[in-house]
């Protein structure tokens, strides 16, 4: 590859970054194609695939009927036969209609066949709340999918990850679910010069700090960064850890950060009970119990189907203010000095 021209560092949106990732994948590998509801003519329900039909034609940019189970299953089948499908499920909410294919087929076939079969399918899903779409359109079920052995779950939160995680997912011989928070599509930024690939194994420290580790992913990353800025003005140095992949979890990075800060707050847009935040907490208890100066705290979505009204939705979701106060409470009550 020629070295990146200067305009590669121009500002772009998260949506543009995902589109560029898909475009590169399609250009680089004839086995790859994109399919999903309204990815072609409509231009993608979040405009991610806009323009791709014109560029690649309808064999590789395939509009599907509203048949989630059938087209996700077809993606799995095509992957079994050696292709590298990118299946777009408009949102995670609708993936519930394809749950059987994902959980009973994609996740099991490699193991159940004694390693004879692989399912190198990539499923992209918009996830999350924050746009007043009410309960049936606001689920954050990525942590729920992370319960399933056989699946790889990745959550691009930054422009770099939006741009390069897809390639890593397509290289994986396993089924990968990529969760794109719908709130991030409009976020703008620029690509980090020098980065041309990312992995699906490691968490990333997005802001270093010594007093507490905020463990998060997705849209909540930005709420944590905002909370960290506020806390810094109060003399509290929060480290912000972006999980990036929810399965497998990068225990080493999580544990080594918490060993340094001795405090952990987990921020998850999923619900608290039986959740990803519960899993991370347990791992910290198992692996860093004696290094913790305070019980692990969690900031999650209230245990309600996410409501429509703005003030109710905001109350339900994690916020920078709630995160900052969880930290303050931990540090004052914990008496960590």
């Amino acid at each position: 590859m020629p070295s990146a021209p200067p305009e590669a560092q121009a500002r772009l949106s998260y949506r543009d970054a995902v589109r560029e990732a898909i475009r590169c994948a399609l250009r680089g590998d004839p086995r790859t194609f994109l399919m999903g509801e309204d990815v072609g003519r409509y231009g993608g329900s979040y405009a991610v695939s806009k323009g791709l039909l014109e560029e690649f034609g309808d064999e590789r940019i395939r509009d599907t009927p509203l048949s989630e189970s059938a087209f996700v299953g077809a993606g799995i089948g095509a992957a079994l036969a050696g292709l590298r499908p990118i299946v777009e499920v408009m949102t995670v909410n609708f993936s519930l209609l394809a749950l059987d294919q994902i959980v009973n087929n994609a996740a099991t076939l490699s193991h159940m066949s004694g390693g004879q079969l692989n399912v190198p399918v990539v499923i992209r899903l918009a996830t999350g709340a924050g746009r007043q779409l009410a309960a049936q359109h606001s689920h954050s079920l990525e942590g729920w999918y992370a319960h399933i052995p056989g699946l790889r779950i990745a959550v691009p939160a930054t422009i770099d990850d939006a741009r390069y995680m897809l390639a890593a997912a397509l290289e994986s011989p396993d089924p990968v679910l990529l969760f794109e928070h719908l709130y991030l599509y409009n976020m703008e930024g620029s690509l980090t010069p020098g980065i041309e690939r990312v992995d699906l194994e490691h968490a990333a420290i997005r802001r270093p700090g010594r007093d507490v580790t905020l463990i998060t992913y997705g849209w909540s990353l930005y709420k944590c960064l905002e909370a960290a800025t506020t806390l810094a003005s109060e003399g509290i140095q929060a480290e912000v850890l972006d999980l990036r992949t929810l399965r497998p979890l990068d225990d080493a990075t999580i544990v080594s950060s918490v060993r340094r800060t001795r405090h952990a707050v987990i921020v998850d847009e999923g619900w608290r009970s039986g959740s990803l935040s519960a899993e991370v907490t347990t791992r910290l208890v198992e692996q860093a119990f004696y290094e913790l100066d305070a019980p692990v705290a969690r900031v999650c979505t209230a245990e309600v189907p996410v409501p429509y009204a703005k003030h109710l939705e905001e109350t339900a979701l994690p916020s920078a203010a709630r995160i900052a106060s969880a930290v303050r409470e931990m540090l004052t009550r914990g008496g960590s000095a």
Partner: protein
Amino acid sequence: MSAGTEVALTREHGLELLREMMRIRGFEDRCYQLYGEAKIRGFLHLYNGEEAVAVGAMRALRPGDAIVSTYREHGHALARGIPMNKIMAELFGRQTGCSRGRGGSMHIFDASRRFYGGNAIVAGGLPIAAGLALAQQLQRQSDITACFFGDGAVAEGEFHETLNLASIWKLPVLFLCENNLYAMGTALERAQAETDIAAKARAYRIESTAVDGMDVSSVEHAVNNAADKIRNQGGPAFLEMRTYRFRAHSMFDPQLYREKSEIEAWRKKGPIVTLTTRMKALGLMTEEDYRRLEDDAASEIDAAVQFADSSPWEPAADLERFVYAERAS
């Protein structure tokens, strides 16, 4: 389209149908505006062009019948008699809304009117409708369940599973497919191998008819017949309402998938213009009548906006209410 035979239209009846359609049209035109003013947020799916289906169908149904709807349900809700104030307040996210602001545009419910809601998952309402109808059957009621859904839903497994179940169990459910030719940007012929939707229901041995969904009288007549048949003989029935939406799918739709000329051609067949023209030609109404209906609708809508805008918010402290039942069922 066979079930569309005309019944003699009277002045009174015609004006009632027109009044209902104009209420819905006016209400939604205002919603469109209010979305621009950020009073209404989230997804907003307008029914503009399809009013004849809701109005004709609700006319023919009885108060005891159960209704299951979709996210494009303002018309169904208004025609069912849910007060406009409560619907507008719901769109504003207020405590006085039908769902106390928790549902918004896509989730209007009114248990007292047996309106089991807007469902925002395509085809998600069909199985529930079968269950409501099963209860009616087991309780030996003469009420039926009417289930609205779009042409897009026909591609979902839930559609096929429910039609089959309703047929083998002879459930008193009336399937009302609102075929507006598009599911978001996907034209029917690009999503369906068999575009004759009514024929699909026949494959499950369900009596099925295609209806001119732009003509409110045809809709009313067809729903009357189908509902009578279900009440008298049991078993499901299916009506494919051929209609068209004039506006975008939602507020975020650049409409790259269809020509303006197509929309214009359908507008000429719009349910409000055609009924008005027909009634005027028959000497059943005057331009003055039309103006009066328009004014009536406008004042009801103004009052609803006023009501919604001055209504209180649900206290944030009550966020976690209703996740579980607060009363014995």
